[in-house]
């Protein structure tokens, strides 16, 4: 392994030497121009890359038929990337292991189900909805309003979930959030027996709330499932927004406070970081992102049923963040999209028949959570920093090894 790495480094250096030689042989005027442009290019190339990726992302749907399975897998993967980014704020930045993230998926999906369907049939409220939905009973809000509502509801829920964990750390936070997630799941399944008066209930249990309004924008019309392109652009827009928020947060005062709390709580608090506010903001912001993605997925699935919100989903989202690299924004996006594709394309469409070809009598989709569990163990044992490690964490991991070596030397000497 180390030999391979040394070999690679040698090749890389040889390449650099050849490049320098090439630049030196150029005419002086061209050479000075290149030397002057190089630092600028180096600074801009990440931005150029991001720009190119965004452009590719926007034009990508034109290469697929409007309702292909590939489109479906792609924008579901984008929705998972949004969730993964939200989880990354809580687990990656602030270091609070949240095993109840499914609760925010549930709140997001239910805010859509409540506010964009005839479920609360006694109410009549219509705000910028399609002409068809405008005639129906129930609450019908525009999708943008629902996104905002989902974000606010989830932020409040996240704060409430965060409150009892303030005095706790590590494993205990994981368990309390897990308990909350499970309670939300149980309530979603049994919400039929929670009566809100005049014949309305909290949820429709396992039957699901259906006949949800598709997103509608004036001038564009209602989205439908025959043309998946608008859905794709919508979730791409949400992803870009959330990624931007994530990037700005990471470099903000709040982001640095989170990282400080993650690294050493006592030291951070004694430096004057407000513990309560910082932790609760992490929960709230992470939750809000999950809620937006949940509302989108709820609208796309056209039915929100109580048994969608299982503990396994929290682990699924956690796997995205871990595989991508804890605390790394690009890692979270990559991990979310990777597991999204694995979940929606690779396992059900490509590899599903592998066990039966091997003479085993089960479809691979049955054990998908086992596969995610295996990936978690594998990544944690072999590459704990993830696919795209956060710079700070990478330094930390190598610095730790160095410190250990130093200790060993000290002990021997």
């Amino acid at each position, binding site marked *: 392994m180390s030999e391979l790495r040394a070999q690679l480094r040698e090749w890389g250096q040889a390449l650099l030497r050849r490049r320098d030689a090439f630049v030196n042989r150029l005419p002086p005027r061209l050479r000075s121009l290149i030397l002057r442009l190089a630092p600028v290019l180096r600074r801009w190339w990440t931005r150029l890359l991001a720009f190119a990726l965004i452009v590719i992302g926007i034009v990508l749907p034109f290469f697929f038929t409007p309702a292909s399975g590939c489109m479906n897998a792609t924008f579901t993967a984008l929705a998972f990337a949004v969730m993964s980014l939200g989880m990354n704020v809580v687990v990656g930045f602030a270091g609070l292991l949240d095993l109840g993230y499914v609760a925010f998926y549930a709140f997001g999906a239910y805010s859509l189900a409540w506010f964009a369907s005839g479920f609360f049939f006694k109410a009549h409220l219509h705000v910028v909805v399609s002409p068809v939905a405008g005639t129906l009973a129930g609450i019908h809000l525009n999708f943008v309003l629902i996104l905002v509502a989902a974000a606010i509801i989830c932020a409040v829920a996240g704060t409430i979930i965060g409150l009892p964990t303030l005095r706790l750390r590590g494993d205990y936070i994981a368990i309390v959030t897990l308990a909350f997630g499970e309670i939300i799941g149980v309530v979603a399944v049994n919400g039929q027996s929670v009566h809100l008066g005049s014949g309305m209930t909290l949820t429709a249990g396992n039957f699901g709330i259906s006949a949800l309004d598709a997103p509608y924008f004036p001038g564009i019309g209602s989205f439908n499932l025959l043309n998946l392109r608008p859905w794709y652009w919508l979730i791409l827009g949400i992803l870009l927004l959330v990624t931007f928020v994530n990037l700005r947060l990471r470099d903000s005062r709040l982001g640095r406070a989170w990282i400080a709390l993650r690294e050493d709580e006592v030291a951070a608090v004694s430096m004057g970081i407000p513990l309560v506010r910082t932790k609760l903001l992490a929960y709230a912001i992470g939750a809000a992102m999950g809620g937006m993605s949940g509302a989108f997925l709820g609208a796309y699935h056209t039915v929100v049923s109580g048994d969608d919100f299982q503990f396994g989903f929290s682990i699924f989202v956690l796997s995205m963040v871990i595989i991508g690299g804890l605390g790394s924004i690009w890692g979270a996006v990559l991990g979310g999209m990777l597991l999204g594709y694995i979940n929606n394309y690779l396992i059900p469409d490509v590899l599903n028949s592998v066990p039966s070809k091997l003479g085993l009598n089960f479809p691979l989709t049955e054990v998908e959570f086992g596969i995610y569990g295996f*990936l978690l163990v594998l990544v944690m044992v072999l590459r704990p920093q993830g696919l795209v490690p956060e710079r700070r964490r990478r330094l930390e991991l190598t610095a730790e090894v160095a410190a250990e070596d130093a200790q060993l030397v000290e002990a021997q000497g």
Partner: protein
Amino acid sequence: MEGARPAPSPYILSLRDVEASSLTERMLPAAALRPLAAVREAVGRWGLIVALAALPIYYGIRDLVHGYQAGFVAGHAVFQHDLTRLGFNLAQGLANGSIWALIAIGYTLVYGIIELINFAHGDVFMIGSFTATGLWGTFGLGLATGPVGVIAGLVLTLLITMAVAGSLNVLIERVAYRPLRGAPKLAPLITAVGFSFILQNVGLLWRGGSPQSVSDLVRQGRTVFSISGVPIVRGYILALAVMVPLVFGLAWFITATRAGRAMRATAQDPEAARLMGINVNATISLTFLLGGMLAGAAGLVYALYETNVWYFQGFEAGLIAFTAAVMGGIGNVRGAVLGGLIIGVIQALADSRMGPQWTEAVVFGYLILIMILRPRGLLGEETREAG
């Protein structure tokens, strides 16, 4: 806010005492702290006890005042105004609780020694159940087997199941936790969750996705005797009869043997234990072995008592048992047993009064309540995590 934290007094030995009250410290001047800490301590302990007593007392009073429907005589509902139904809940709860106690001990032992929630522990219990019921088939145990054959077969099954579950737990520690001993604390927790899912899917492939009934070898529903109208069935006696000797055996092992002393030393301070010549890795493996063995025993009892098994039982049981371990005070074996019995009673009450679909929510509600009121549990000392 401007009042700096009081300087730690020289007799504070570990970080945990300083961290414990950091919130209150920052809100109040140092002089006001001592009485407040006492108040908080009292509110925590008594609040938890009140919360725990609330359910049985509420339902007891309701039974006495409003009565409950005890059955039908000649087409008319018969109402009773006594505590028999509550007694029935208690008996059933203690029997359930014995199983949760056995699993909770596994959590508490492992947490006590390496401060890790062994998430896969519930699934080890599930694999124990599956192994046990699989062995019945191998031994040819069935409803037609005579009493001597059943007893001999079950004892043999118990031993093999304990060995299998114990080794599985040791294996998990070897593969998933030991390589991460020096890593950040999040890492082993994540592999634990991963292993939990792997085991669940093994169970899913082994026995299918729905609960499977297994033969009722001990006729668990047969009443042995009754205490003032509350029938005590064989299943209850079986659960207690397996739990009590195992717990006493474990207590003896931990307190009286050399290996047990090594375990306690490692739990207190792994580094010092290593310097004293204790093989820390072997001791940790031993702890996982013991926890896994108890989970295996619990798996057999569960199969006999519930007469069905399914792959998801481990996840549910794991969370309930973890709640029990936290309630009793994590790291404390007596606490785990006490917590197990209490949670068993809460579960039985919720099952019978609110309907089993709400039980999970009730148990987790209690878990959150414990975390708010008294994170260290009923009998526990403060740990570094919960302060």
